[in-house]
């Protein structure tokens, strides 16, 4: 995959490093504790002062990963 992408690059192209972040988000406590793991995407080309502060909203949600249900051992 990486080799295929690299072979498509031409002179003058710029690489865009992608940074993925994730953290558990608590959604609700009714009918069981509900939460998900949102995956945020930002790019590494700007400085960390720009793409890291939450107030700039540079992280875009690209996926919502569910939390697996509890195992049977816990339920017993």
């Amino acid at each position, binding site marked *: 995959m990486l*080799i295929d*992408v*690299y*072979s*498509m*690059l*031409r*002179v*003058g*192209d*710029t*690489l*865009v*490093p*992608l*940074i993925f972040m994730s953290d558990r988000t608590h959604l609700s406590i009714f009918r069981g504790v509900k939460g998900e793991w949102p*995956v945020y*995407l*930002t*790019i*590494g*080309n*700007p*400085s*960390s*002062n*720009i793409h*890291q502060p939450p*107030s*700039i*909203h*540079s992280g*875009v*949600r*690209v*996926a*919502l*990963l*569910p939390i*697996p*249900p509890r*195992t*049977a051992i816990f339920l017993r």
Partner: protein
Amino acid sequence: MLEKNRFCCSEFSCRRRLTSDSWRLKHPKLHHSKHLQVSFQKNLTICRAPHRIEHAQRREFNTNDDSVQVLDAIPNLDDGEHIADSESKLPPPLPRTRIYPCAGAPPTDFIAEPLECNIQWCLETNLQNNTYYLFVTREEYKYIQCGINKQGMKTYYDKVLKKENTVLRFPRFKNGHRVQKLVASIPNDQPLSEWELHTLKDMRWNDNHQCPVKHWSQAIIKTMRWLIRQPAYVEHLIFAPQLCVNCDRPLKHFCIEMHTADWW
């Protein structure tokens, strides 16, 4: 007494109480399509993000010895046209990385084609074949190029919209403000793709939960394109590794250094 309107952006939760007359996008948030629409309706100009960049060279945790100032925000594509012509004049920058040797090492497996020195050929090839290319159309490429060169919207209008045979044809404007309004009024396409529900068919939670794993996601490439095309990012793209061609025969690719010490 000014009437106060509350502008709520559901996408980014911008819940600031702002007056109708003094409504400005002073906060360095990315310009969402709703922001552009409201700013066009209220005849306002969009402010850029404030400068809060420190030189990575002065930071203590920056272990690289190279200067960041030599790296442009986005590689100047006008200079890229003269890469082949200026082989004898200015040699390309050599990789000088010590802690990331793989970043500047020349990939010997990839031999450059002689046509790659022609920047126009590279653009046409990327527009046709490269699905990961940033620009979809030639107009987008030239629009960003004018923005990089800090020539302003009027220059973009003169160069792209008026001189060339493009689909967008507008009457003459005396200043760049109306051009900016006109470009802002162009209907914005869906910057972010729609959410799609994916199912991992071959994966189960555990023995007691045999239902397949489902998750929501959207296209990463479209999101990356939308992020790097944000006008608030234009002045802050300081880490832009660029693909170059060395002076050896045959020509070989190598990337200039990628500064990763300042990512976090």
